[in-house]
């Protein structure tokens, strides 16, 4: 994107910012960095100054613009609802155009182009997580035709810490008698990391491939355990197939009495992932699933639902400022511990990875699991 396009697309939006500063206390990056460049107001001001020619589009801007988590909490605190996340992503695209973006994103883009996944593994290994499956026949997972396609996502496919999530989710769906399949090596990255990297135009090839593959299966529904894949499909993909998050599908199974949930004596809290909650509007389904498990006590985080604070794993910030990402995760952990719950549940493998990694580095004892793992745990109780 160039400045002319930026102006056309975003000038009216950024002009709504009156610099009132109501967004400051809602921004996790400001809470850590304590400077104006780490505020939504500051990022808006940068965008406006670039459009008005008061600030040069240069690598000097990269620090402020590439450390936004894209969590959207600022917009919820903003009375004119300035969409800072969108402004920032447009800025990133402009910085990329003039080669003032962090070099790591060029590598990311090349890797996605070559491997079609973010971990630079052979994409045929996407179904590696099936090793965790116990009593689901392998052939059941890779059918040519099915009602539902489970889009697993890169993180859950390739990162060992997250691979239990698809295994548990597939097991639950299998026992609930659903007709589903996965795309295996034909699943490509959804393109979400490229949006955060400021390369939205490079999503097209991935998108077209994925939509084509989904069509060929003849599925009526696609289900996602990754909120960011879901968000990308919902907002960037044009498909008339029903798109669901795992928590929504689980809630449906609960309400149809298809899950034999057994008691779990646990006090848990629930972390709303930004891309599932605030940015997609799914708040209650995961809570309904948790509450349907006998014996569980759910305590809310002080900041929940629309006001949920990002775990630190959003916006590709981890790739450019790992210290910032870790400090934000640390604050999230403190918020979790303040509830007195011994387990945190989330519905996003990326949130869990960020939270667990940070807790482990600081030797903090914290149980964290995905909603699907919690349900599996309840189902497996004797």
């Amino acid at each position, binding site marked *: 994107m160039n400045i002319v396009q930026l102006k056309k697309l975003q000038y009216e939006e950024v*002009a*709504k910012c*009156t*610099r*009132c*500063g*109501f*967004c*400051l*206390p809602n921004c996790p990056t*400001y809470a850590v960095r*304590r*400077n*104006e*460049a780490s505020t939504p107001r*500051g990022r808006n*001001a*940068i965008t406006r*100054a670039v459009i008005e020619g*008061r*600030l*040069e589009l240069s690598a*000097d*801007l990269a*620090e*402020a613009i590439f450390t936004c988590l894209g969590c959207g909490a600022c917009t919820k605190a*903003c*009375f*004119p*609802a300035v969409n800072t996340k969108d402004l920032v992503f447009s800025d990133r695209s402009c910085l990329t155009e003039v080669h003032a973006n962090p070099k790591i994103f060029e590598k990311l883009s090349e890797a996605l182009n070559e491997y079609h996944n973010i971990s630079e593994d052979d994409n045929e290994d996407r179904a590696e997580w099936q090793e965790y499956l116990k009593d689901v026949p392998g052939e059941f997972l890779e059918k040519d035709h099915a009602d539902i396609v489970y889009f697993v996502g890169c993180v859950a496919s390739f990162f060992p810490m997250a691979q239990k999530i698809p295994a548990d989710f597939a097991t639950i769906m299998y026992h609930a008698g659903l007709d589903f399949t996965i795309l295996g090596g034909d699943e490509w990255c959804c393109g979400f990391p490229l949006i955060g990297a400021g390369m939205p135009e490079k999503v097209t090839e991935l998108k077209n491939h994925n939509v084509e593959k989904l069509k060929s299966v003849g599925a009526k529904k696609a289900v996602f355990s990754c909120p960011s894949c879901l968000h990308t499909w919902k907002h960037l993909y044009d498909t008339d197939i029903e798109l669901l998050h795992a928590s929504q599908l689980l809630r449906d199974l609960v309400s149809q009495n298809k899950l034999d949930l057994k008691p779990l004596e646990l006090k848990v809290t629930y972390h709303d992932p930004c891309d599932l909650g605030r940015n997609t509007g799914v708040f209650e389904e995961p809570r309904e699933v948790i509450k349907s498990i006998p014996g569980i006590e759910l305590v809310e985080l002080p900041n929940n639902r629309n006001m949920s604070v990002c775990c630190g794993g959003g916006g590709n910030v981890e790739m450019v400022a790992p210290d910032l990402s870790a400090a934000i995760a640390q604050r999230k952990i403190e918020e979790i511990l303040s509830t007195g719950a011994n387990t945190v549940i989330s519905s996003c493998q990326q949130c869990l990875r960020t939270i667990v990694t940070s807790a482990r580095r600081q030797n903090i004892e914290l149980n964290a699991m995905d909603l699907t793992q919690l349900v599996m745990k309840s189902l497996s109780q004797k």
Partner: protein
Amino acid sequence: MEIDALRQRLKEIVGEDYVLSSSVDLMLYGYDAYLEMSRPDVVVIPENTEQVSQIVRLACEEGIPVTARGSATSLSGGPVPLKGGIVIHFSRMNRILEIDTVNKRARVEPGVITLDLQTAVAKKGLQYAPDPASQKTSTMGGNVGENSGGPHCLKYGVTTNHTMGLKIVLYDGEVVDTGGKAPDRPGYDLTGLLVGSEGTLGIVTEITVRLIEQPEAIKTLLGIFETIEDASNTVSAIIAEGIVPATLEMMDRLVIKAVEESVHAGYPQDAEAVLIIELDGLKDGMERISDRIIKICLANKVREVKVAKDEAERNTLWTGRRGAFGAVSRLRPNYMVCDGTVPRTKLPEVLRKVTEIGREYNLPIGNVFHAGDGNLHPLILFDCRDEEETARVREAGTKILRLCVDAGGTISGEHGIGLEKLHEMSFIFSQDDIAAMWKLKNAFDPVGGFNPGKVLPPLAS
């Protein structure tokens, strides 16, 4: 001193990470929520009084201006560094140092967010009364600088009425205490002098405030009116009856509409005006006072009086009020708020004339204000990208303030003078009055380093 050398010296004081000087950072520290912008030469983010003292001493020696900044939510340009120099950002000095529940005092650093203090003391059954609409983001240091008010200042007074003592860094870096927990300190009231001085006399690095008991009961009413006149008359009548509610806040149709589109606070969109009337205090007798208020409303042709049923409903009503300034920018991108004050009895007349000014200059004007105090906040809506329109806005703003002064009022209730109202200072002060203030300024700041270009207009030679 060369700028690079200055930056180096500052880095030695606060550390490498807390001295900012990229072109982006300098742009970002040149604004607040007012229109004008400028640019500092360097930004520092200190973490204690000692560092602030060293920064100010260095600036004094080198003849460099120093401007203090909190969350920069101010509406009159207070933290805009007009003459460049050093901006001190207090974002890291944000610790609540002490909450003394027995003596009902709190000691805080200037970067503490107002609402964070309120939340912390509320857990101990206490209250810090001043409640600027921006309390969730404004800082205590900023509140002291601007002598901030808020809806509840009708009953409880503004920041100065709750400030017991300050630690201040003087122009040469010397650190002094102006008061503390004890009331009625003898000698000159330096605390009173510093509160509202907008960073032009000294830099505050610690604040001791008074806390009060939380009220036993709160009752919030929403009066819905067909005309602004009826609502204004109701305000005057309530006060004339000897009732002092905690708040008496008014919003007109334009603001109601903007707020409703933004947060659905439950204000009726076809009303010309609403009043938020809040009572607090002892449970005993509250019903009786509330009944009297309802009677007064009825006598002044209220359409309906709604009572908030619970805390959630109360919060919703207040969320709407606090977000009113932000919400109007859904209608036009910018607003200028004219913070004039008039005697309450003049409200209907002045509001009528404000509407006329809007018509004369062809500008939409919304009203949301502390009616109980007669503290108007006409919001003139515009788009600052239109220079001609912006010029009209400035003229209309000046005219509204003139109107307030002519009605026996003044040019600022709580938003300060900053750089916005230097010219209008002459509406209420003679050259001799201003000269007297300059003597005070010069006594505190003989080198003219603290926030130059603010509050006092230059004297005509």
